[in-house]
């Protein structure tokens, strides 16, 4: 079905986009300016003294996350080894070059043949240059993770995520590869003694050169973080500058109630390609009084999610309305080495009801290039 849009409504939509972007840009700037006009931090807030950084030169770092997961989807096993190296190169006091790549193979049985078959997939997740211009602004140029919601930027790595499967709505507005190629302005600052504001705004250009593929779009994300209750809420907006020039928006929520080893996270996203949400909670059993040494290493996870199809088909999203729940249990041998497992069931019409089991291990190491200690 073709959708006709009148020129006037298109102009109104454009104006609305510009107005939203203007608001997202200017609110942090106004807060930042207001802060600079006040007294120094130490004068006003005893909990916020000025702190002089130690005079240490930063050292380049090589890190990598490794994972070996086995997904049993509808009874069919898929083996999924993955390596994701991260390189950080600090330059001077204000510059940082950083990159993360992913090399993964999805090995699956081929009917009529023996063994598992798959091919190596390579992806440049990000390769960016950051310039910390001032306490409120960092300028990023290059290939960056699309800051739509928080899962793609913060929780995506296999050594961080609590459940190894992606949320169903992740492809909404993160583009074909979860990354953009262009420039980004971002930062965070204290708006009041009990509230911090963070923002990110970006422009990405069109690229179809694998593994640097990205969509042409412009967007922004803004969030409020309350350090006391450890609560963060925020919203994202994106305007596609190609194809149907559609808009997308989303909300994110994260809460870690301070007395409990509990994480509660949720995201909602909506665009022409579909809409949906996920809610996830993870509880570390460190407060269980029995077998404390073992129980503190165990984490229980649960996630519920729903996805509804949109008017535009996206091959990376489910083709039909889909519901899914998952329960997981992770065991931390160390904070960088863990066993992961989960069980989930997907509900979708047309034969889309099946179980998903996951078993695997994740590991991460971090190494300095040169001497990490003080010389």
């Amino acid at each position, binding site marked *: 079905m073709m959708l006709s849009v009148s020129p006037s409504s298109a102009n109104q939509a454009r104006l609305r986009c*510009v107005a939203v*972007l*203007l608001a997202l*840009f200017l609110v942090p*700037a106004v807060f*930042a*300016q207001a*802060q*600079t006009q006040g007294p*120094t*931090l*130490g004068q006003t807030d*005893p*909990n*916020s*003294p*000025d*702190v*002089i*950084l*130690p005079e240490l*030169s*930063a*050292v*380049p*770092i090589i890190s990598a996350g490794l994972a070996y997961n086995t997904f049993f989807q509808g009874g069919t096993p898929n083996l999924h080894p993955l390596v994701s190296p991260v390189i*950080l190169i600090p330059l001077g006091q204000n510059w*940082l070059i*950083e990159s993360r790549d992913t090399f993964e193979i999805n090995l699956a049985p081929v009917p009529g043949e023996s063994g598992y078959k798959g091919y190596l997939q390579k992806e440049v997740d990000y390769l960016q240059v*950051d310039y*910390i*211009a*001032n*306490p*409120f*602004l*960092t*300028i*990023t140029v290059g290939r960056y993770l699309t800051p739509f919601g928080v899962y793609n930027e*913060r929780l995506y790595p296999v050594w*961080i995520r609590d459940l190894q499967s992606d949320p169903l709505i992740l492809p909404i507005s993160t583009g074909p590869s979860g990354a953009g190629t262009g420039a980004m*302005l971002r930062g*965070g600052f*204290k708006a009041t003694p009990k509230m911090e504001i*963070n923002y*990110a705004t970006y422009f990405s250009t069109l690229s179809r050169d694998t593994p640097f593929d990205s969509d042409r779009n412009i967007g922004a994300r803004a*969030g409020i973080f309350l*350090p006391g209750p*450890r609560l963060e809420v925020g919203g994202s907006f994106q305007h596609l500058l190609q194809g149907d020039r559609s808009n997308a928006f989303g909300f994110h929520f*994260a809460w*870690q109630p301070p007395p409990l080893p509990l*994480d509660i996270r949720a995201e909602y996203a909506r665009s022409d390609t579909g809409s949906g949400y996920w809610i996830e909670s993870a509880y570390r059993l460190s407060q269980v009084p029995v077998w404390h040494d073992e129980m503190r290493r165990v984490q229980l996870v649960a996630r519920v999610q729903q996805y509804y199809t949109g008017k535009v088909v996206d091959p990376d999203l489910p083709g039909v309305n889909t519901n899914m729940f998952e329960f997981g249990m992770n065991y*931390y041998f160390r*904070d960088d080495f863990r066993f992961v497992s989960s069980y989930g069931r997907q509900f979708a019409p047309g034969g889309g009801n099946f179980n998903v089991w996951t078993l695997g291990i994740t590991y991460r190491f*971090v190494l*300095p290039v040169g*001497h*990490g*200690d*003080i010389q």
Partner: protein
Amino acid sequence: MTSRRVILSSLLALVTGTLLLAGSSAGQQVDKPASAQTTNSTIHSAPPAAASAQGDEALRVEGEKRFHANCGRCHQSPHKFPPRMVMTIERHMRVRATLTDEDMRLIVRYLTQ
């Protein structure tokens, strides 16, 4: 199409300029000598040595609190890294997790002590 690009470019330039200006004036305050900042401290009534110890302990406690509030949102129990690695990791996390300058300074201080 061209006019829209001009509007968006102007908007971007305006906001970038505003943020840069805001930051430069803030930097002038942040870059004050340590002696001036000590004068502004809230622990000025105590003797110098005791005040320094109290101040160090207050900063350590505050740094640990900020570490758990910010880093703990995604990562598990604390890593101990060599100090020069901490400087790089915090710069990375400042960008990735949009840490505030103040949080970053307190966390670096906590992790490098």
